[in-house]
C-alpha cells in the first residue's frame, strides 16, 4: 500500500478539523469550506498543505510583495493533543528573499489555540486597504483595523496590547513588527514573544498585505481515533523525549554545538573566513559559558516536553542593557556571535532581541551584518557610508546597525535592510565591485550555522534545499559531522544522494505533521511515526506510504521552484567556499572543488529520479508519486520582483 490512494479513508477522520478559511483582504470577505478527506490524507498537514495550495492557487511569476501572492497558514492533525512538540504551525508563500517556495515554521501556543478554534488552514489573498489584524475566536472570524492601535508597534508590545484588549493572557498572537510592515525581505513573524516563523521573509508577505497579526483562541475539544492506545504511546514518547535522545536540546541547548562544530572546523567565524575561533577555544563563547553565566530559565512551547527555549538575562547593573531578556539558540550565537566575530554576550542578546521584537529573521540579520563587517574591513563600505565603524567584533555599533536594518533607516537600512543578496546588488550598482561575493546566501536566503569548506555532503544538502540555504530541509550535515562519507572528498555521489534524500523525505513529513525536529530521535523508527498518525487521525498510513507522501511533497515544492524559474545553477553554495580557504583548523587550506561538487549534485538528482543534468523531475518520477497534474506545467514563468 505504497500509493496514497490505496490508503482507506475511515468513516470519521479525527485530529484534523478539516476547516479551511479563505480570507480575501481586498474585499474583506471571509469564507469557510471543508478540506476533503483525500486532501488531508494525501498532503498530511503544514508543509504538504502549503505545497499543494501554492501549486494550485498561486499564479506563477507574481511579485512576492504584491497582492497576488498567496499566504497560506496551516497545521496538521496533532496540535492540542499531548504528542510532544505538536503545537506547531507553518506559513507558506512565494518568498521575497528567494523568489521561490517560501516556508517558515513556529511553535508556542498558536497551533494549539488555532486547533481548539477549529481551524486547519487559512489561505489569505489580496491586500487590505488599511492595516488590519485577523481574529479567529472559535467560530467567529473577523478583521480589525489597527492603524491607530498596534500598527508600527514592536511584536512584544503588539502581543501585549491585543491580549489586553481581549482580556485574555492566553490569546495566541502571531504578528509582524515594523520590519515586516515596511516589507523588509527578511521580515519574520513572532508569536509568544520568543517564537518566530523566521525564515524566507514571511513577515514581509504579511506586511505587503497590510496584515499586522493573526490571533487565535478556541474552546473546542479534540478527539483522537484511538484514545487509549494514543495515551499509552504519548506517555512513552513524553518519557523518551526526556531521555538521552533530546538531552542536548534540554541541557545546554543547541549552543552545545558551538564547541563540537568548532572542533570540526565547521562553526562559521568572521563571515566564513574561518571555521574555528579562539574565543570558543578559550571557553569564553561556548554553550557551557552561556548556560553558567547567562541562562536563567528554560521555557517550553505548548505541549512540548523538551523545553529548549533558553532564556538569557543580563544583570540589572549592566551599563547598556540592564535586565535585558532574550531567547537564545545556536543559530544566533553564530549569526551575531562567531560570524560577526563578537564574543560579547550582551551584544548578541541585544541584537537577537531587536530582531525578534522589530521583526527580522535573526539568522538573516546576523549574516547580513557579518557581510557588512567584512565589506567594512575590506574598505568596500566605509565609516563615511555608515556613520560609524563596523569591524568584526563590533558591539554597540553592531546593535546600531541591527536596529537600522530592522527599521530601514540610514545607509545600513537602505542597503542591507533586505538581506545579503539585495545588499550585494545595490552595492554593485553603486560601483562597489564584487560586493555580492561576501553575501553568504543560497538562493537568496542567508546561511545557517555550518561552514561548508569541509562539508562536501552538506554542501549539496544545503544547496538543494527548497527554501534556500537551510539546515532543516535535510540532515545532511550529520553525514559530514559523523564521517559517514569523506567530508573533504567527492566519492559515492549516488550513495550520498540517497542518504540525503532519506532524511529529506522524513523531514518533509515532520514539517507536515508538524512536529519539532528535536523529537526526530524519540521515535523507535518511521513506522512508529506513522502509527502515531493513525492513532490520532484514524487514517492507516504505513511507514512506506507516509514516506512516499514526504517524497511527493518535496517534489511538488521543487516543481513550484522550477515553475518560478529555478535552474541547476541555483543549487550552488557561495563562491567563497570554492576560492577562499580557512587559515587554520581541521579544514585549513581546503576549498570546495567545482567538478566534485557538480558530481555530487548530479548524484543527488539521480537518486531523486530527476534528470541528472537539469535537475528537473522526470515524468516517470512525477507519475510514480501521483503528481501527474504537474506534467506539462514546468515551463518557467516570466518572473518579476523575484529571482534573477
Amino acid at each position, binding site marked *: 500500500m505504497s500509493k496514497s490512494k490505496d490508503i482507506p479513508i475511515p468513516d470519521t477522520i479525527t485530529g484534523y478539523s478539516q476547516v479551511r478559511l479563505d480570507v480575501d483582504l481586498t474585499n474583506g470577505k471571509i469564507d469557510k469550506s471543508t478540506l476533503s478527506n483525500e486532501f488531508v490524507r494525501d498532503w498530511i498537514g503544514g508543509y504538504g498543505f502549503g505545497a499543494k495550495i501554492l501549486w494550485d492557487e498561486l499564479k506563477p511569476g507574481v511579485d512576492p510583495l504584491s497582492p497576488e501572492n498567496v499566504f497560506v497558514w496551516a497545521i496538521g492533525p496533532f496540535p492540542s493533543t499531548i504528542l510532544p512538540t505538536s503545537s506547531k504551525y507553518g506559513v507558506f508563500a512565494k518568498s521575497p528573499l528567494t523568489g521561490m517556495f517560501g516556508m517558515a515554521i513556529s511553535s508556542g501556543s498558536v497551533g494549539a489555540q488555532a486547533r481548539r478554534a477549529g481551524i486547519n488552514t487559512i489561505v489569505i489573498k489580496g491586500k487590505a486597504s488599511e492595516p488590519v489584524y485577523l481574529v479567529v475566536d472559535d467560530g467567529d472570524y473577523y478583521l480589525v483595523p489597527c492603524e491607530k492601535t498596534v500598527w508600527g508597534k514592536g511584536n512584544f508590545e503588539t502581543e501585549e496590547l491585543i491580549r489586553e484588549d481581549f482580556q485574555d493572557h492566553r490569546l495566541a498572537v502571531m504578528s509582524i513588527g515594523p520590519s515586516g510592515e515596511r516589507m523588509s525581505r527578511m521580515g519574520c513573524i513572532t508569536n509568544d514573544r520568543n517564537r518566530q516563523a523566521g525564515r524566507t521573509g514571511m513577515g514581509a508577505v504579511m506586511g505587503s498585505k497590510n496584515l499586522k497579526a493573526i490571533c487565535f483562541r478556541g474552546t473546542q475539544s479534540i478527539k483522537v481515533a484511538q484514545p487509549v492506545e494514543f495515551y499509552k504511546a504519548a506517555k512513552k514518547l513524553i518519557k523518551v523525549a526526556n531521555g538521552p535522545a533530546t538531552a542536548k536540546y534540554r541541557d545546554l541547548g543547541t549552543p552545545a554545538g558551538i564547541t563540537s562544530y568548532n572542533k570540526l572546523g565547521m562553526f562559521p567565524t568572521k563571515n566564513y573566513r574561518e571555521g574555528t575561533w579562539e574565543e570558543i577555544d578559550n571557553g569564553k563563547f561556548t554553550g557551557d559559558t552561556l548556560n553558567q553565566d547567562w541562562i536563567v530559565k528554560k521555557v517550553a512551547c505548548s505541549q512540548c516536553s523538551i523545553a529548549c527555549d533558553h*532564556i538569557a*538575562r543580563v544583570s540589572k547593573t549592566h551599563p547598556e542593557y540592564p535586565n535585558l531578556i532574550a531567547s537564545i539558540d545556536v543559530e544566533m550565537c553564530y549569526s551575531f556571535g562567531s560570524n560577526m566575530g563578537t564574543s560579547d554576550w550582551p551584544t548578541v542578546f541585544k541584537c537577537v532581541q531587536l530582531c525578534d521584537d522589530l521583526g527580522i529573521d535573526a539568522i538573516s540579520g546576523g549574516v547580513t551584518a557579518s557581510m557588512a563587517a567584512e565589506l567594512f574591513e575590506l574598505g568596500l563600505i566605509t565609516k563615511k557610508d555608515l556613520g560609524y565603524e563596523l569591524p568584526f567584533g563590533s558591539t554597540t555599533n553592531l546593535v546600531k546597525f541591527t536596529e537600522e536594518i530592522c527599521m530601514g533607516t540610514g545607509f545600513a537600512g537602505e542597503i542591507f535592510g533586505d538581506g545579503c543578496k539585495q545588499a550585494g546588488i545595490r552595492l554593485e550598482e553603486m560601483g562597489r565591485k564584487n560586493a555580492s561575493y561576501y553575501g553568504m546566501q543560497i538562493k537568496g536566503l542567508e546561511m545557517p550555522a555550518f561552514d561548508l569548506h569541509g562539508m562536501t555532503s552538506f554542501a549539496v544538502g544545503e544547496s538543494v534545499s527548497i527554501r534556500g540555504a537551510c539546515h532543516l530541509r535535510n540532515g545532511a550535515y550529520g553525514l559530514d559531522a559523523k564521517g559517514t562519507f569523506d567530508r573533504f572528498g567527492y566519492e559515492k555521489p549516488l550513495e550520498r544522494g540517497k542518504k540525503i534524500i532519506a532524511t529529506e523525505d522524513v523531514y518533509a513529513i515532520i514539517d507536515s505533521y508538524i512536529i519539532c525536529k528535536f523529537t526526530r530521535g524519540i521515535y523507535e523508527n518511521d513506522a512508529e511515526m506513522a502509527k502515531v498518525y493513525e492513532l490520532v487521525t484514524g487514517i492507516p498510513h504505513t511507514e512506506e506510504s507516509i514516506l512516499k507522501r514526504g517524497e511527493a511533497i518535496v517534489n511538488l515544492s521543487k516543481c513550484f521552484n522550477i515553475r518560478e524559474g529555478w535552474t541547476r545553477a541555483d543549487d550552488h553554495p557561495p563562491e567563497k567556499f570554492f576560492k577562499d580557504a580557512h587559515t587554520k583548523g581541521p579544514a585549513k587550506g581546503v576549498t570546495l572543488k567545482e567538478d566534485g561538487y557538480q558530481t555530487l549534485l548530479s548524484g543527488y538528482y539521480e537518486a531523486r529520479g530527476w534528470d541528472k543534468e537539469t535537475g528537473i523531475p522526470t515524468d516517470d518520477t512525477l507519475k510514480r508519486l501521483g503528481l501527474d497534474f504537474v506534467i506539462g506545467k514546468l515551463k518557467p514563468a516570466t518572473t518579476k520582483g523575484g529571482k534573477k
Partner: protein
Amino acid sequence: MATRKKKIHQFIIVDPDLCTGCETCESVCSFVHDGEFNPINTRIHRVRIEPVFNIALACQKCEDAPCVESCPEKALDKAEDGSIIVDEDKCNGCGFCARACDFGVMTMHIVSQKALVCDLCENMKEDFIDPEIGKREPQCIAVCPKEAISLKNVEQIGEEKRIDSIRRLFGDVTEFGNK
C-alpha cells in the same frame, strides 16, 4: 472554625524552578476525565508570567474551603482526604465557587457548566489507568515531563523546607560529630 478530618490531606504542588509552562498537565487532565483534549476543562492550571516565570496551580484543599461555604446550592462538600466533591445534580453552574476560590483553581466545565476541581484523578476514566499501576493516580504527575508536579501535605512540605534550611545554615552535615 475548621476541624481536621481524619487524614492530613495531600494536594498537588508544582515547583516553579522545574515547571517550563508546557501545559501538558492541563491537556492530560481534561483527557483522562473526558476522553478529549481541552485545557479549558482542566483541573490544574498553568500560570505563565512573562518573560520567565512558570508554575501550575490546582486545588489547595483549604481546610475552611471558601468554595464549599459559598455554594448557594450546597453542591460542594469535602471528602475525607480533603478533596472537594461536586454533586453534579445539585450544581447549577452559578460560578460562585469560582469567585470564592482564592487561587483561581475552581472553574466551570465548558460543556456541562458544572464546577470543576482537582479530584486527584479519583474520577479519571478507567480505560486510561496504567495496567502496571492498576489504580487511579494523578495523571498530571504521571506525565509531567520535568517531574515538576508532586503530591504532598503541609507536613512534608515543611519537613523538606526545614532540611533545606539546615543545609543552607550548616553545609554538609553528614560528617557532623566526626573528631
